[in-house]
């Protein structure tokens, strides 16, 4: 039995090493996706062009401007003398936002720090709302603590809501995206490669010869999977290596934990590919079915939108997908330094998925042509 499995593995690796196209895909898919997602899909907003309308022109207002500038969210490129000018500049698209500081900003700040409930805001932002990301970023500045503006090291009486951010303190989305990309890219390549690897043999006629030999379906399935586990690890290495170098994504957890999680996910994805290969008749069908799995894996796994915010039905679907479980594990390990041992539920789930998938594929694979 094992010699037959080994024979299939060796054969598959040989073929893979001679197939330049697949070889290129193994390397290029993760690289291109990583660079695309890493650079383009950047939801961190910085250095928005903004103006300031300072009607008080006091030490308070200057301190306030300095504090806002320090957040790096906006660059005050212009000083305007009234609100009307600011509105025009926003309409023309010269600036995205304007900070309007009233004449009595000093008194307002004092009231604020003495613990009065804020009846009047300290200052006002005018924002270009046509870009929702910009608008929500500026809204984020609304709760900016004002203590530093007043020069108080700590304001005693004011119970301001304090947000303490663990992990990823700079709020860079790329840090969150890279572990998620691991899941997306592996889903795409692992499912596709195995599905196509078997369907292609059927399409090209190799299967007709192979199934008249004593090989057992389970042996064939196992032999087809193992080489792609190696391919999967190559891709994990590329994504994490490049993510680490290019985007300084930290890897807090142990590499052994991450490798184990990746192994489980790769196996689950590969068996999913096997199941697809027993259904698809042509390579094109296999690709279409892969996309059918890939889309929910991107949209519902927590890669794009937070899992917790999804409607109940979407959460159920997402719980079925191996990508969801892997993404949870990858983020926990890469960003929070968790261990595989802390993630028992996801581990068991991926293991179960693999075993059931392998059984289904072996049973469905028939050594017949009809």
């Amino acid at each position, binding site marked *: 039995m094992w010699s037959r499995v080994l024979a299939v593995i060796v054969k598959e690796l040989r073929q893979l090493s001679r197939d330049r196209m697949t070889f290129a895909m193994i390397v290029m898919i993760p690289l291109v996706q990583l660079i695309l997602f890493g650079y383009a899909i950047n939801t961190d907003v910085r250095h928005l062009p903004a103006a300031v309308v300072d009607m008080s022109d006091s030490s308070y207002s200057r301190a306030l401007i300095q504090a806002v500038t320090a957040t790096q969210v906006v660059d005050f490129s212009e000083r305007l003398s009234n609100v009307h000018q600011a509105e025009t500049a926003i309409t023309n698209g010269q600036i995205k936002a304007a900070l309007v500081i009233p004449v009595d900003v000093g008194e307002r700040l004092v009231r604020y720090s003495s613990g009065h409930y804020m009846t009047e805001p300290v200052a006002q932002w005018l924002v270009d709302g046509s870009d929702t990301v910009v608008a929500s970023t500026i809204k984020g500045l609304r709760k900016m603590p004002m203590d530093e503006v007043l020069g108080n090291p700590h304001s005693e009486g004011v119970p301001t809501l304090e947000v303490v951010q663990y992990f990823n303190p700079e709020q860079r989305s790329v840090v969150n995206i890279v572990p998620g990309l691991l899941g997306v890219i592996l889903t795409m390549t692992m499912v596709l490669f195995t599905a196509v690897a078997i369907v292609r043999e059927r399409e090209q006629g190799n299967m007709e*010869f192979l199934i008249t030999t004593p090989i057992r379906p389970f042996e064939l399935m196992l032999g087809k999977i193992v080489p792609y586990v190696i391919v999967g690890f190559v891709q994990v290495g590329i994504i994490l290596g490049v993510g680490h170098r290019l985007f300084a994504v930290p890897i807090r957890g142990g590499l052994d934990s991450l490798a184990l999680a990746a192994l489980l996910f790769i196996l689950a994805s590969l068996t999913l590919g096997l199941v697809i290969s027993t259904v698809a008749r042509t390579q094109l069908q296999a690709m279409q079915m892969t996309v059918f799995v890939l889309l929910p894996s991107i949209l519902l796994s927590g890669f794009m939108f937070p899992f917790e915010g999804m409607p109940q039905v979407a959460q159920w679907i997402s719980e079925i997908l191996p990508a969801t479980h892997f993404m949870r594990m990858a983020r926990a390990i890469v960003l929070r330094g968790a261990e595989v041992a802390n993630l028992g539920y996801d581990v068991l789930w991926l293991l179960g998925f693999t075993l059931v998938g392998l059984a289904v594929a072996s049973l469905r694979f028939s050594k017949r042509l*009809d």
Partner: protein
Amino acid sequence: MTELAVETQGMTRLFGSNKAVDSLDLAIPKGSIYGFLGPNGCGKSTSIRMLTGLLTPSAGTIRVLGEALAGNEERLRRRIGYMTQKFSLYENLRVTENLNFVAQIHGVPRRQARERVAELLTLYDLTGQHKQLAGSMSGGQKQRLALAAATLHQPELLFLDEPTSAVDPENRREFWERLFDLCAQGTTILVSTHYMDEAERCHGLAILERGIKRADGSPKQLMAQMGARVVEVGGDDLRTLKQRLTQQPAVLSAAQIGSRLRVLVRDDEGDPVQWLQPLIAGRTLEEVRPSLEDVFVTCTGARAHPAPRESSHVE
């Protein structure tokens, strides 16, 4: 009674409403080379796939090597070899890699496998190509490699589906020499073909047309029993003569071969030379020995011409 390697009764296979193979009865004795002769689409591959357990027959029973095929496929597959019509080894593997793979799948121990592969390379004249990728070889080389792979585990029964369709005549003759060698070692061979000269080499053969067996027997028997006699006519203007003759109900076919017209006359007309004499206006006449092609034409062509396929639905 001789032992049978393959025995079928009423073997039938439907694809939708299309009968690819229709109630085929076969009795192929062990140790012989048996041929399936017929045009493309007549059901040769479908029959072989049923006999190798790849397709389930819609009706009928199959016995292979003395056992019922149904339920025993896995065990029987160790004793049979199958060379598919389309090259089914791996084009991006080298010759030896392909053969080693097949040996491992058949569970041949490593040392024995090495010897067997070397032996096959010599036997099928592939020693010079052993490092070449299978996909880059010529038709004849691919065919020899496929035969080597199909016989690696020394099967008792070998199925060859149109093995020589991509091979030149020189290599074809060489290939048949190898088949006779195998046969002499006791292997039963079932080979499909649409070449008459190949069919003529078989010990026995079945002529298939649209899934139906039109005739079977040894080539000699078939020629003796074909129910027509063959006359060759020489002279001028054979094209018009051909048109005139084919209108006669007793003429099964008239085909020009070089400067002669080969005419098949039903044998219930008595002496064909005498019967033809008044129709040919002083051209020369000679009765000749029938060929397998004549058998084929009498079995199939005669029926095919007056009633094309679709007309059967109209009636």
